[in-house]
């Protein structure tokens, strides 16, 4: 048996890519998540009202999205519609988090991948040597996103403000005004960031071209009308041609009629396909690129222009996996401009901020867009408001099948010799484009650390050696 293990990096959590070989030839690729934390069982028996405080801890990177999504589900469980003001505050939280994450992914996780592969320890730090402006402006946007979450959510990581029926407290007026002023000031930063990031990607078109897509569907929330809003709308699944396959509402358990969850025996990720779909052929991609194709109008001219540029060059729907990096730039622009406008004009202070719940418990589900794609929280509670059921589907769980499909398409049939040292970089490029968040995806699991690549013989069952080998 050939045993080789490469550790992959620049993503949240731990995942393993298994490459099965017959002799020298690659015959199959499996994508494995290994962290387990049991978020879907451990709060059973406790108050469902507390879910929005617990679920952000599923993922520290996109905690605010989990918070908002959880609040949306709890609203439905408790039979209450949040007031307008509360919805605006929650939306602002989600906008801020998206801005933070898209910028953070670009500077810290995604773009270092476009540095020459022979750079030692490719990272944010190396990127800042090659492109100091890009990193500096990017990190400013990251902090800006954190500020928005902090003002509206109470804390920058793991926010607390949203409760069943609304929010606990309106933001401080002076804080919001300061933020609005900050957004006006940093316009130039954004411009510089977009230029730098865009040009870096422009230089690497051959790399983007190299990774052909082979996932089948794309799924995202379509807000219907501008401006772009990741928190409300109708979920749409489109096929390779861009035709709509299924739609379902962003609230309620109807998603169960459209999606299937599959337990696989080699991973703690429960992979997702459309109803009745096959794991190997019917994979769904979610995330920034899916949104790029499904959202009709960002409501920001600049963002729409950038998007049309992508469509011109790569066709519509744009499907090359690595185009996600472009899509993230487009979204950064859209989110920044929308936030700038909203912070300056929107009213977050008119009471009420929360409506009282009308029932002890029932069933409810909330669906929002996380930075990495569609996020579903589905709860049920009994009359005494005790949680009896929790199901959470995270973007990376949905993407897992798509990652596998892309990896298979790119690697199966090639030989290890021909790939040689490039193997690691090639797998990493695909996996990083999806920005998998392993903490989230391994449902019950927390995320472990890096991606590991293991190469095994086709006849050997996959088994973790008791003591994993530590060297390449």
């Amino acid at each position, binding site marked *: 048996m050939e045993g080789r293990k490469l550790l*992959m*990096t*620049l*993503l*949240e*959590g731990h995942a393993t890519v298994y490459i099965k070989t017959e002799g020298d030839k690659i015959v199959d690729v499996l994508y*494995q998540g*290994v*962290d*387990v*934390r*049991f978020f*879907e069982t*451990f*709060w*059973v*028996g*406790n*108050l469902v*009202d507390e879910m929005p405080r*617990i679920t952000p*801890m599923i*993922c*520290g*990177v996109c905690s605010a999205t989990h918070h908002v999504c959880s609040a949306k589900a709890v609203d439905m469980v408790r039979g209450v519609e949040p007031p307008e003001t509360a919805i605006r505050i929650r939306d602002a939280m989600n906008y801020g988090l998206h801005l933070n994450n898209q910028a953070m992914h670009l500077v810290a996780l995604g773009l270092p991948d476009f540095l020459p592969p022979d750079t030692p*320890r*490719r*990272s*944010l730090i190396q990127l800042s040597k090659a492109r100091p402006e890009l990193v500096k402006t990017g990190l400013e946007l990251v902090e800006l996103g954190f500020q928005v979450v902090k003002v509206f959510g*109470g*804390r920058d*990581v*793991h926010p*607390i*403000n949203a*409760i*069943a029926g609304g929010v*606990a*407290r309106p933001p401080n007026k002076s804080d919001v005004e300061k933020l609005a002023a900050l957004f006006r000031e940093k316009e130039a930063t954004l411009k510089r960031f977009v230029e730098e990031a865009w040009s870096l990607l422009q230089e690497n078109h051959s790399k983007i071209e190299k990774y052909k897509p082979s996932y089948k569907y794309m799924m995202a929330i379509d807000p219907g009308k501008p401006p772009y809003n990741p928190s409300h709308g109708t979920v749409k699944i489109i096929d390779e041609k861009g035709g709509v396959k299924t739609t379902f509402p962003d609230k309620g*358990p109807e998603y169960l*009629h459209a999606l299937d969850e599959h*337990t696989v*025996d080699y*991973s*703690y990720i429960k992979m997702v396909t459309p109803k009745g779909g096959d794991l190997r052929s019917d994979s769904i991609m979610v995330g920034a690129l899916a949104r790029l194709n499904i959202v009709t109008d960002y409501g920001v001219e600049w963002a729409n222009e950038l998007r049309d540029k992508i469509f011109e060059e790569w066709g519509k729907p744009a499907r090359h996996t690595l185009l996600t990096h472009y899509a993230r730039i487009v979204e950064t622009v859209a989110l920044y401009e929308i936030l700038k406008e909203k912070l300056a004009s929107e009213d977050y202070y008119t009471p009420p901020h929360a409506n009282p719940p009308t029932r002890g418990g029932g069933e409810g589900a909330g669906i929002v867009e996380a930075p990495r794609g569609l996020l579903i929280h589905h709860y*049920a509670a009994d009359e005494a408001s005790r949680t*009896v059921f929790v*199901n959470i589907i995270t973007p990376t769980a949905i993407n897992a099948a798509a990652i596998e499909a892309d990896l298979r398409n790119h690697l199966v049939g090639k030989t290890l010799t021909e790939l040689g040292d490039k193997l690691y970089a090639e797998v990493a490029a695909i996996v990083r484009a999806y920005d998998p968040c392993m*903490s989230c995806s391994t449902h*019950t*699991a*927390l*995320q*472990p*650390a*890096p991606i590991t690549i293991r190469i095994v013989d086709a006849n050997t*069952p996959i088994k*973790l050696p008791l003591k994993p080998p*530590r060297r*390449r």
Partner: protein
Amino acid sequence: MAKLTLAAVTLTACGGCDVQIMRALLHPDIMESFEIVYWPFAVEETRLPEKVDVALVNGVVRTEEDLEKLREVRKAARRLIVVGSCAGFSGIAGQADYWPTDASLRAVYGKPPENTVKVLRRVFSPADLVPVDYIVSRCPPLVPSIVSALRAVLGKTSIETVESTVCSQCPRRIKEIKEIHFKKGMPRDADPETCFLSQGYLCMGSVTLVGCGAPCTRFGLPCFGCSGPSHEVALRRDSDIVIALARKIAVLAGLDPVEGAETVKKKLLETYGPRRFYVFTMGSEVIRTKPNAYAVEAAAETRLNPELCEKMIETRKKYLRR
């Protein structure tokens, strides 16, 4: 001065600590003094070196792989700093111990995956398993705390341990309690100026480590206890979260601190159940080994009633079957 080498290791965690570590490392003086040699979250380097000067560990030990990794990093590191509630006191991940691990696995996966990393039977916090030099608690850990721990390693500043509770930073006024009566749920109609305990809501502030600046109570939500137990609770063998809290409430209500506390404790446990007091500390040995603690009792609830587990699994199936 030569740069110190730094490795950041994530066990089973949420990534929030990684984000905070990143923000801490971006401080110019820290960036100048440390060279990052291993950090899967942000640096493309697959091998943990055999010797590093400082290691930052976050997350809980949940799988066999985590255990291996933790041993490896402890062996390699001259100074080991654990970051976050998970690493210090098992954090939110410790809640999973309420259900037996195989019941949870069955509930979520039906048939648990076999060809993958093995999940341990319970959650451990790294601070319970290996000796650590510093704990930066809280969920999420605060950037200034991580920075001050790193500066302390550099020998630039001395470091003071925190020994007060969240109450000392909370702006709410404590008033006497008229009648011992506890309310469940979120405090929607609570007075924004008065202490939650005085109003009959469960707030963990008085038994929780300080440092966060009490954002939750400022936002009208009671403290959840994310920093872990305060000095007094953790150090005294006769103390525990529930009894310490009950004692404070009892005296606020003008009762005797010993006998009154017993009555209050009974009432607290009746209203909220033992598990609610250990949201962030359930898997911690510091709490579990206390003779008066209820963490083990909470976990025993499901172990003594296997029907509870079956019911949970059945309910899950029912809702997912459409």
